[in-house]
């Protein structure tokens, strides 16, 4: 009976694995509904997409979506030699979106099939994801899932760990027998298996993170992690043995074999690198899980319950504009994240001083623009000495107006070594005296005023109207 149920289960597994290819056929079968697709072989396009992604996963972490799309667009252009580049591009985009199942209503491709049980046949659903996108740092990369890799390997549901062990034994044997070409083929397959294993574990880790909020997963995941760590340690050990044999082989090899042996070494090195990285991640993840198990991550309201489209956007649009705006503003702050408050520096201060004054817009009955009142004292780029020198120059001004250009020339003459800070600061002072709209810095004489003169400023650095500066007596109340 046991033997029987094992056999039946295996068949069921094969049915499910077979259904993994269903999405590929479905796209092909329904291409008549898409305009301008009749001359395309979408199966070829889809399988090529798998290959391109796996190639990129062998070189690094995954494929860049736009590169993938342009490669497929070129291929589509070959199949249908119409000169419509936009169409080819759209085809490629849609093929990729299809494989990522972005068009479906559920996150996985689902196909119904029958499942045998003690009480007869019942309906079951095969649930599969072939590709997914993953963020690595600020890159988003397309990757194959283990099921996606399986499609390429042409294998029906293998145990990756067992397969890895078996192939490594063969690989070692081939090297010792000196059959290096065969060894290289095996090593390349071993690398694909390590990628597949890595993805399989990534999925375990992801599922566990989702489950942490819902189910008791601790024992299952912890057990799986431990197995994985043992398996990776075992791989690293075997790989170092194979590499040792490879080094011996290289010394005795004929010259025409060295290129193959070098390639072999490179592939093995890559496998080792991947396994080391995987080992690091596994250790880190186990630690995180242990903590999360005891202390569920407490991000505020971490279970999504809001249907943002019809529960937020639609009602928002029906609100009176002023209410809608205030909700939008709150949402904006929460969504866009924090920003460190900006320190005022002279560069920005000058920008602000030179900026056209903001007017209250006519169309805007509600706007109340608050001026940004900021302390201009700290964070200047000028030294105490610069300020003292400028104070000395400004101190020489009396009630008789002087031209700003004369002041500048004078200052440059007196302090030639402190250029350009002194003339910059002097210009700032003159501008403030001309249009004071904030509290003056402490070092400015309070009674200094400036007004435009009829002449142009004669200066190698600054332009515009020359200014007349003088002191005015304080008004007595």
């Amino acid at each position, binding site marked *: 009976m046991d033997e029987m149920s094992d056999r039946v289960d295996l068949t069921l597994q094969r049915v499910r694995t077979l259904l993994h290819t269903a999405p590929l056929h479905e796209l092909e079968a329904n291409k008549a509904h898409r305009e301008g697709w009749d001359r395309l072989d979408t199966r070829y396009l889809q399988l090529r997409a798998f290959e391109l992604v796996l190639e990129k996963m062998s070189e690094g972490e995954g494929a860049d*979506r736009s590169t993938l799309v342009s490669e497929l667009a070129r291929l589509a252009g070959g199949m249908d030699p119409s000169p419509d580049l936009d169409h080819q591009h759209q085809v490629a985009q849609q093929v990729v979106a299809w494989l990522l199942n972005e068009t479906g209503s559920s996150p996985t491709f689902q196909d119904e099939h029958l499942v045998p049980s003690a009480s007869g046949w019942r309906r079951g659903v095969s649930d599969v994801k072939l590709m997914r996108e993953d963020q690595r740092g600020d890159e*988003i990369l397309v990757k194959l899932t283990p099921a996606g890799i399986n499609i390429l390997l042409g294998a029906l549901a293998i145990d990756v760990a067992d397969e890895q062990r078996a192939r490594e034994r063969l690989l070692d044997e081939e090297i010792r027998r000196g059959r290096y070409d065969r060894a290289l083929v095996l090593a390349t397959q071993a690398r694909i298996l390590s990628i597949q294993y890595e993805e399989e574990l990534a999925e375990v880790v992801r599922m566990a993170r989702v489950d942490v909020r819902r189910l008791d997963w601790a024992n299952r995941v912890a057990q799986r992690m431990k197995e994985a760590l043992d398996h990776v340690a075992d791989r690293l050990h075997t790989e170092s043995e194979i590499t040792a044999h490879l080094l011996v082989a290289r010394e005795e090899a004929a010259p025409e074999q060295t290129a193959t042996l070098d390639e072999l070494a490179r592939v093995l090195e890559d496998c080792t690198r991947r396994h080391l990285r995987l080992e690091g991640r596994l250790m880190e993840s186990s630690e995180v899980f242990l903590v999360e198990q005891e202390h569920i991550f407490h991000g*505020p309201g971490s279970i999504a319950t809001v249907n*943002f489209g019809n529960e937020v956007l639609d009602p928002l649009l029906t609100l009176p504009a002023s209410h809608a705006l205030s909700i939008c*503003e709150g*949402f904006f702050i929460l969504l866009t*994240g*924090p920003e460190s408050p900006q320190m005022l520096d002279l560069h920005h201060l000058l920008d602000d001083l030179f900026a056209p004054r903001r007017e209250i*817009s006519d169309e805007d009955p509600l706007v109340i623009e608050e001026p940004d009142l900021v302390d201009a004292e700290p964070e200047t780029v000028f030294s105490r000495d610069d300020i003292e020198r400028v104070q000395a120059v400004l101190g020489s001004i009396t009630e008789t107006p002087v031209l700003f250009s004369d002041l500048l020339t004078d200052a440059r003459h007196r302090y030639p070594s402190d250029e350009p800070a002194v003339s910059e600061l002097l210009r700032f002072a003159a501008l403030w005296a001309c249009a004071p709209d904030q509290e003056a810095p402490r070092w400015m004489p309070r009674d200094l005023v400036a007004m435009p003169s009829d002449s142009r400023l004669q200066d190698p650095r600054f332009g515009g109207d020359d200014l007349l500066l003088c002191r005015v007596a304080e008004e007595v109340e």
Partner: protein
Amino acid sequence: VKVDDSTAGDAAQLIHYALDPKMFTDRSEEYRALTQRYRTDLGFQGTVDAIVHGFRMEVVDANEWGLVLSARPGSMFGFSMADWRRRHNVGYESRLLHGLAIAAIAACYYPTARTLEEDQHRPLSVDHVETFLRNACDELRKRHGDDPPASEQPEYEQAWRVVARQKSVTSSTGIRASEKATRDVIRRCFELLADRGLVKKMKGQESWQPLQRFRASMLGIASHYAYEELAAIQAKESEDV
């Protein structure tokens, strides 16, 4: 619990990294180690959370790529629409349009609660969002009719009418993008979101993909806030009636 100086320093260091939306753990070994410590050392997590709360912020996610923070309205770390557009002479309508465009982008990426649970990075273009927003407005036009209720006060006009009467593109041939034409507004919003590390522009294409930060902020706090505020307004309206 007594916190020693070095723990407080580490906590501040972690927050400093997290304040940069374009910083990821693969760029700094220290950030990686601090994030890992946050995820595994509950005492440290408590210290970081306390400081973050003191600054009126929340930790909305902690994953292998770093810590994601969100500022509450009123926090000095808050980045508001006014901060964003302060160098432009923008009026009330323009601010409303930008705010709605951001909400429309969010709704387009994550229309349902289910989509928020999936790690998908479906790209969107300005076209997608505009069509989505216009369709929503058309639906409302069918429900509420063409004629706006007689009111002299623009702030009582329904938000969708403000959107519906804007042009898609500006008719003038000036180089400056318009403050109100919907396509210009949506594009500007995408650019801002990219700047804030929420979306990423695809190479050589006018499309943007959402990054994890977007989903985490929506999932953690932003979508709930909008939902609850709406519910509060609706409750108040039904009371008034």
